């Protein structure tokens, strides 16, 4: 037991100690096991890309980056791992392989899921407020500010002092100085 405790933290040493106590047969089995492991270790390699055609994949990703996942809203179909997005990505791959144009694919999506599926909604009657609302608010805000500032300038009158008033003011200011210091 002491020997075990001595090498407690040294896994390698412990391994040798254990090996020492194993029967010859067990040793063989262990060796065999290690030998069999070697090929799987050395032959493992980088994961293959999922798509067989990188060009199709690139186009699909570019398209789906502008499409909304309807299940996990505020995620793109490119970035979402929802089942829904998987299906749409598969569908778009099929359509790309069928030589559909980008516009045709986007139209296909809008026909089924509405403009909401686009992160870049088209300008039309129902989206005018969305597109130009912020600009309108900005114009109204700036206009209001300009009018307000102009009116204020008119309200502030230039007041000129008479000689007597000026003297009085200077006297007051001097007096103040004296008091403070």
């Amino acid at each position, binding site marked *: 037991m002491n020997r075990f405790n001595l090498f407690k933290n040294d896994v390698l040493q412990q391994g040798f100690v254990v090996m020492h106590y194993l029967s010859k047969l067990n040793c063989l089995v262990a060796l065999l096991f290690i030998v069999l492991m070697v090929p799987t270790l050395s032959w493992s390699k980088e994961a293959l890309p999922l798509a067989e055609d990188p060009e199709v994949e690139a186009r699909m990703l570019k398209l789906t980056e502008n499409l909304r996942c309807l299940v996990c809203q505020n995620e793109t179909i490119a970035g979402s791992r929802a089942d829904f997005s998987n299906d*749409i990505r598969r569908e778009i791959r099929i359509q790309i392989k069928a030589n559909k144009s980008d516009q045709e694919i986007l139209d296909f999506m809008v026909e089924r899921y509405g403009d909401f599926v686009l992160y870049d909604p088209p300008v039309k009657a129902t989206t005018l407020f969305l597109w130009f609302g912020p600009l309108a608010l900005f114009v109204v805000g700036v206009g209001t500010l300009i009018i307000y500032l102009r009116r204020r300038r008119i309200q502030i009158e230039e007041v000129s002092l008479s000689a007597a008033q000026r003297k009085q003011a200077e006297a007051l200011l001097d007096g103040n100085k004296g008091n403070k210091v």
Partner: protein
Amino acid sequence: MMRYLLPLAAFMVLAVFLLVGLTLNPRQVPSPLIDKPAPAFQLQQLHEPEKVMASEENLGKVWLLNVWASWCVACRDEHPLLVQLANSGIVPVYGLNYKDERDVALQWLRKFGDPYAISIVDPDGRVGIDYGVYGVPETYVIDKKGIIRHKQIGPVTVDSLEQTIIPLVIELQRQT
């Protein structure tokens, strides 16, 4: 007076916008398919895989298409209502078994009841995409000419049946 009224009016407008926003559900994406022809399909039947059902077979009658799956928990909520509706004979309900496994789906129907006139299967969800399905269960009301008149996203409820779906079905059945 104006200097107080104007900000107040602006605030009121904002408040109304926000209030309306609170009552909207972002999950209810209005379907662009309403008042458009229901996408045609030819699908294998669930009970008899050797048989195929085509959507044109239902032309001339008002019908419901209910998209469901055994893995869909909300489908269990609406299921008793669909069974009731089917038993009432008001309108035939067709089931689209969406991205499911046949055995499990059949077992599910045996367990919870089978309201469907015919069940069809869409194993990889491609017909689902045509119908703009994104959250099962979904239910479509389709009229005699094969036009989609209404889409219920999420489970049907007593309210949605009594206030929307059934009145609409009865109205559509009167049309020729």
